[in-house]
């Protein structure tokens, strides 16, 4: 069984298999990654780091492309607004 990694997404604790991306963690938490310029909820589109729809703030760093970032224990992920 793969190891699990625990992190928080918008304050909620989420457990994912080690090696999963932050975008997956956000999806498992049933959250949107970001709010668009006019306030629409958005999630990953291209899955390869090009569309920028998967952006979240990770440990305070804004505009992090979550589909290319692996989850680490204790990461604090929040919606990019």
């Amino acid at each position, binding site marked *: 069984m793969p190891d699990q990694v625990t992190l928080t997404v918008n304050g909620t604790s989420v457990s994912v298999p080690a090696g999963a*991306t932050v975008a*997956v963690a956000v999806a498992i938490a049933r959250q*949107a990654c970001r709010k668009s310029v006019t306030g629409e909820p958005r999630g990953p589109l*291209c*899955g390869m780091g090009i569309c920028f729809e998967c952006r979240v703030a990770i440990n305070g760093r804004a505009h992090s492309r979550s589909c290319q970032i692996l989850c680490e224990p204790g990461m604090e992920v929040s919606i990019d607004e």
Partner: protein
Amino acid sequence: MSREEERHFDVLVIGGGPAGIAAAVRAAECGVQVGIVDDNATLGGQIWRGSLENGPAPDALHWLRSLQKLGVTELSGMRIFDQPDTGIVRAEGFEGSCELRYRYLMVATGARERFLPFPGWTLPNVMGAGGLQAMVKAGLPIRGRRVVVAGTGPLLLAVAAYLHEHGAEIPIVCEQASWGSLARFSAALLAHPGKIGQGIKLKRQLGRVPFVPGSWPVAAHGRERLESVEILRHGRREMIPCDYLACGFHLVPNIEFPSLLGCKIQGGYVQVDEFQRTTVDGVFCAGEPTGIGGLELSLIEGQIAGLTAAGAVASARKLFGSRNKAVSFSRMMDRTFQLRTELRTLPSAETIVCRCEDVAYSRLQGHTSWRAAKLHTRCGMGPCQGRICGPATQFLFQWQPDSVRPPTFPVRVESLASVTEHRGASALQQ
């Protein structure tokens, strides 16, 4: 502050997909110093993307082992964003940026999916076909979820088969190409028996999943996320409840960096000679940026480029025959999966076309060029730098893209602040 580093290579490969890996391996086998750069955490690009479950793609395994055995320097998690001078590119990673010097550059930047706007396409859980597959490979649970697969291109079947294998329920695969086009394609496949074998295998994997040519999505519905997809099929609309929509309209080559280098672009692809050399001295290009051709062609082109750069020209020549065969297959694909004009009528006035800046379709109509639209509506001024809305508006309005400026990808200000010109310096003199 960025960490300043400098690395030197005889051959530097940009892009860790099949073309790049093949180029790196063949060049390294000839004994030259090779480096390969890719922005993902592990090599493989898109088609060879590894999965959480199974590790690297099976096809890729022996190539990846060769890479390691040959001592090729792998620079993962790094993006090339600029060329300050001949023989030098700059790359940014999560922590810092660095300078990479080369004698020969292999551009193997691959392709991305083409997205076309339609009402509701911005809802969470509407993704590209390759996009959803990438997410599943990265750990997204898909067992028992309903996924409508739609759009165009061979990727759809491959993705549908993959998702099906992993327990997704697939109510339908909508291919916008007509039965006629596909029948001609299948007949022409007789010249490519290997492909027929692949096709049969996919069909078997898909079992009873309905594959419907001549159909396409017209709207995605849902409040906070996708709840159902409306498709058009034989002139009739059908509503299909689902959890995900995997929708992509074939592929667009990633030609931004070669454009910045000054490589001649012909018909939207990087122009290369029979040795995969671009019009810029010392720069090769292999794989999708020279023409959407799929895995086999990418591997052949990558090898030709790598061998040529390393001086093994005779060996490179030996591959010309198999390349010609693979090219004819890729041309067939282009014709088969051409976009039908009805797809231009999909967006409504309020449909968002530029997702970064939330610019609606109605605001874009009436502008005569990409540049005018950009200036007056901000379309294309977001972080995707027009990679998503560019191909869409090119299809909708026939706009031609702008010239490319550095950075070819959003990077931190400090990474650009570290760029300096080196007059006359080149890897050869090092």
